[in-house]
């Protein structure tokens, strides 16, 4: 390598400013995660109940397993059982409630304290959600074991590559779902009950994400349209990947990335305008 002195000096300079910043961010992330993890583990009973309240895929599993015994749906009973178990898992990892917290922070004016910190408040919420995933893991795992004990025919082990891919996809799905709701949460700057928006939005999520049925049983035209919306990538896509149903990997990843970028831009825009609107009610 031939480099003159000033170049070397310059690089050192850049490095010496990037590295501490990186270390600092890493430290902040670590602290936030461990604090929120400790907080979440305090409420173990509550956490277990949240896990149980996501029982919808299990209920629908019963319906479809029964239906596939006599009807022609293109999937067997065991396929349905596996699919809905995977949907249950995907749901556990992508549950988001940030809009209710953000709304309360705005209405009670508590956002003001967060704004004083040299850290974008989104990271607090993101860390608390991520830590909750970790705290939830043992309960969800217990339920999966219970499921296989009750229904051993459905047992399967995904290959390590599938599992690794699933982990990547589920993180992307969680990020998308989080950004989606956080974008809607920005409307709390203007209206008092932004969560009403989420309740409406949730309907689309509920019926189009693959929570009530795998997209295989949708009418073909509906399926084509739905696959361009962000919803099926939150449940259907990760779940299908895990159980080995055919998916278009490239296109799916592309759609996820496009929607994530769109929601990110919308969030940034609304956040800047919202801060100008924010009056710090009550604080």
């Amino acid at each position, binding site marked *: 390598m031939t480099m003159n002195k000033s170049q070397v000096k310059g690089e050192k300079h850049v490095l010496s400013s990037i590295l501490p910043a990186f270390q600092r961010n890493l430290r902040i992330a670590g602290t936030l995660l461990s604090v929120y993890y400790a907080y979440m583990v305090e409420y173990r009973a509550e956490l277990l109940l949240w896990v149980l309240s996501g*029982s919808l895929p299990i209920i629908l599993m019963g*319906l479809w*397993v029964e239906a596939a015994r006599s009807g022609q749906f293109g999937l067997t009973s065991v396929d349905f059982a596996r699919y809905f178990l995977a949907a249950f898992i995907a749901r556990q990892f992508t549950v988001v409630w940030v809009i209710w917290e953000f709304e309360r922070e705005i209405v009670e004016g508590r956002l003001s304290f967060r704004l004083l910190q040299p850290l974008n408040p989104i990271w607090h919420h993101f860390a608390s959600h991520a830590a909750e995933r970790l705290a939830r893991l043992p309960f969800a795992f217990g339920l999966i074991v219970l499921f296989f004990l009750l229904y051993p025919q459905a047992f399967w082990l995904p290959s390590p590559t599938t599992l690794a891919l699933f982990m990547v996809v589920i993180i992307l799905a969680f990020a998308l779902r989080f950004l989606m709701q956080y974008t809607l949460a920005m409307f709390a700057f203007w209206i008092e009950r932004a969560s009403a928006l989420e309740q*409406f939005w949730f*309907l689309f999520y*509920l019926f189009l994400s693959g929570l*009530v049925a795998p997209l295989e*049983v949708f009418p073909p035209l509906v399926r084509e349209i739905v696959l361009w919306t962000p919803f099926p990538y939150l449940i259907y896509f990760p779940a299908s990947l895990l159980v080995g149903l055919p998916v278009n990997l490239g296109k799916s990843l592309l759609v996820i990335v496009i929607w994530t970028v769109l929601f990110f831009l919308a969030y940034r825009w609304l956040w800047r305008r919202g801060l100008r609107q924010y009056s710090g009610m009550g604080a």
Partner: protein
Amino acid sequence: MGRYWQVLTLFWTTAIAAELEYRVNFLLAALSSLGGLAGSLFGLFLFYQNDYTFAGWSWEQALVVLGVFTLLQGFSSTFLAPNLNRIVRHIQQGTLDFVLLKPINSQFWLSTHTLSPWGFPDLVFGLIVIFYAGMRLGLHARDYLLSLVPILFGSLILYSLWFILGATSIWFVKIYNVTEVLRGLLEAGRFPMVAYPTAYRFFFTFVVPVAFLTTVPAEVILGRGEMGWTLGAGGLAIALLFASRAFWQFALRFYTSASS
């Protein structure tokens, strides 16, 4: 009795007056329940698209179940959710003291204090679905009237279960989401019981009695209700109602008041 009636009208007129301040919310609620209904119809349609039917339930008959479910959903978001979800907050903040001091039954106060018109659209849409399916099937007025009995029983069962779960927050303060578990399981009521495998049917009849909430009333509307099931629903409703009362009295002995 007369006094309770008078108090009830007062509660509800003030609640409606207060909620009418938020008319846009009401519009949103109406839109949401319309969307929810469209989604439920879509979900049901997925089963019926390829000549498959739930054993003994044609499309219209399954619609009746969905109608009863929507009706109950409206009932719970009008009367149950706004009141019973508040019990937790009363306990957490110690304001239950003020309720207990009032010269009126505390369970009555907690269960009826407010009502939210947000559930009205669901009530209306539920009735529309039932009557639409009923017209297609040519049902009799007598059966509609008769079905009021199991629907009443179903509402009482739902109320009692919800109240009992809410009352457990006397011990476990931060447990309000136990009612979310109940709500999640109630989703099973969208479909007639025969659509489920045997183990599910057992669970939804004897553990969480969803069968009595929607399938039993729907059978009566269709004019093929069996006396035994309706009687069972009645027995269960009365037993649970008394249980909720006894449980509340028992729970209050452990109430230690949070702030005073």
